Each structure stands twice: as C-alpha cells, then as structure tokens.
C-alpha cells in the first residue's frame, strides 16, 4: 500500500497525516516537496492541512500553482485517488480539480472544534466504509471553510451525488452552502473536505470515526472492523 503526502511551505497538519497513513497502512508514506514534478507510484495521494504560503492571495491559491500540483492533476486524471483535507481542499478547488471555492467563515472566526458529519453518499471510493446517513464525529480547524458554489454548480453536485459529507445536527461551523463539508469530483477519485479525519483514527484520539475514509480509499474498508 503506497501513499504519498504532498508537502508545501506553511502546512502544519502534514505530520498528523503522515502518522495516520503510517498507522493505517503499516508503511510510512512517501513525501513530495512542492517543487517536484513527479509523484511516486501511489494508491492514495494526500494534500494535508495548514496554511500553505501563508494563505497569501487566497487560501490555497499559490499552492495550487506550484509545480507538484501539475503532477497531482496528472495522477488524478489517471484515476489515482487524491484526498485534500482542509488547506488541501482549498488547494484542490483553487487548482480546478474540484468545483467551487472556500471563503472566509461567515463568523469571521477561526473555528477549532468537533463537528458532526452526515455521510451523504457512502458509494464513493472514499466513503464505502460508512453507511448512507451515518453521522460521524470529526474535528475542524480553519478560517476559510465556507464552501461556495454558484447555483448551476451546486445543482450539478447534487445531481451527481458528489456531496459526500454534510455538517449535521446544526454543527455547520463556517456558513458553507447546503452544509457542505466534503465533495468528490465527477469521476469520484478526488475528495476534498474541511474536517480532519486524520485526527480520529486511533482510540487514543478519542475515536476512530475518520479511519474509514482512508480505509475506503485504500480498498481496506470492511477488512478492519469499524
């Protein structure tokens, strides 16, 4: 099981992501620096959270134009699963690999807390370890998580079953349209989400609700008891 973590200046959740992937796969992920132009052969590519390039211009805007993102786009086009968490989600949107944009939280406050997520579509390759309608716990920590898409795009997301996670039980922390917390691309192999599943994968984290995302993406779901 080969996983790859993309590294950019200003990320701060990369170590958590590397630890999570190592725990789940038993093998440390490869890391690629933003100036690299090729990715190692990967079963899953992850862009972790943080504040790449200090969120200059717009969150994820500079990172989305870095050389490594061309390699990520090529891998995504070939069907390699790509997961972007938090800043990773912002970067995927800025890179055009996912539709829509992530704007400043409507409260204008940085939010760092636990939310509830409804699994809206458990038939994606990232969510098959869950059941439709299942509500899971997941932490969030962001300033720009307010997902926005115009009406046409939003309708496409709904019609295409591309909304994977929604904030549930009135826990929307950022004003995201339709309570959207995570979406996949039309091909279903690129997932972006604001919450941090990598922080809920071991009992010591206080829960393992986030684990099935990685296990689903890596084809391990069902093999390990949820």
């Amino acid at each position, binding site marked *: 099981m080969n996983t790859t973590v993309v590294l950019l200046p200003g990320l701060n959740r990369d170590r958590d992501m590397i630890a999570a992937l190592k725990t789940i796969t038993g093998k440390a992920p490869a890391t690629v620096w933003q100036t690299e132009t090729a990715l190692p052969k990967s079963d899953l590519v992850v862009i972790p959270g943080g504040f790449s390039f200090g969120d200059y*211009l*717009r969150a994820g*805007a500079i990172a989305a*134009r870095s050389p490594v993102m061309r390699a990520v786009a090529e891998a995504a086009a070939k069907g390699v699963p790509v997961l972007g968490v938090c800043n990773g989600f912002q970067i995927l*949107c*800025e890179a055009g690999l996912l*539709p*829509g*944009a992530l*704007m*400043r*939280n*409507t*409260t*204008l406050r940085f939010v760092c807390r636990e939310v509830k997520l409804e699994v809206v579509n458990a038939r994606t390759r990232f969510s098959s370890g869950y059941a439709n309608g299942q509500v899971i716990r997941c932490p969030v920590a962001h300033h720009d998580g*307010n997902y*926005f*898409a*115009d009406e046409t*795009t939003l309708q496409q997301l709904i019609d295409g079953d591309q909304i994977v996670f929604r904030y549930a039980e009135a826990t929307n922390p950022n*004003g995201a349209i339709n309570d959207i917390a995570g979406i996949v691309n039309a091909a279903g192999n690129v997932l972006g989400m604001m919450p941090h599943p990598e922080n809920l994968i071991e009992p010591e984290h206080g829960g393992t609700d986030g684990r099935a995302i990685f296990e689903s993406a890596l084809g391990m779901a069902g093999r390990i008891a949820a």
Partner: protein
Amino acid sequence: MTKARIVVTLKNGVLDPQGKAIQGALGHLGFEGVGEVRQGKVFDIELAGEDPAEAERRLADMCDKLLANTVIENYSITVE
C-alpha cells in the same frame, strides 16, 4: 514599461462577511448612512512592453489563472 491596476471584487450574490464587519465598524465610529460595504483587492503591476492592448490581454490571462478566483470574483483592468 507599462503600468496597470487590477481591481478584484466579489461577484454579486457572494456573501462578504468581511465587508459586513467593516460596515458595522463604520457605524460604530459614527459614520451615518453607510450602505453595503464590499471588500476587494488591488494589484499594481508593472509589465515590460508599451502596447496597451497586449498588456491588457496578458493581464486578463493573469487574472483568469491566478489573481482572481472567477468562481467568486470579478476583475477589472486599467492600463495607464
């Protein structure tokens, strides 16, 4: 050398919580009659070359590819 100014603003219908907060602060300072406030960005850019039409074409390309997120933002270009 050509100098240009690019103004990036949020599209109509896109919520601007920062603009709203600024509007509130202006009210707290006693400025009356302040309507909606929308926050934007300004880029002053120097470009090699003297042809304004060519400059405008290149700047529009820069806006589409980096300076504006056209999902949520509009831009306008003024070449000096």
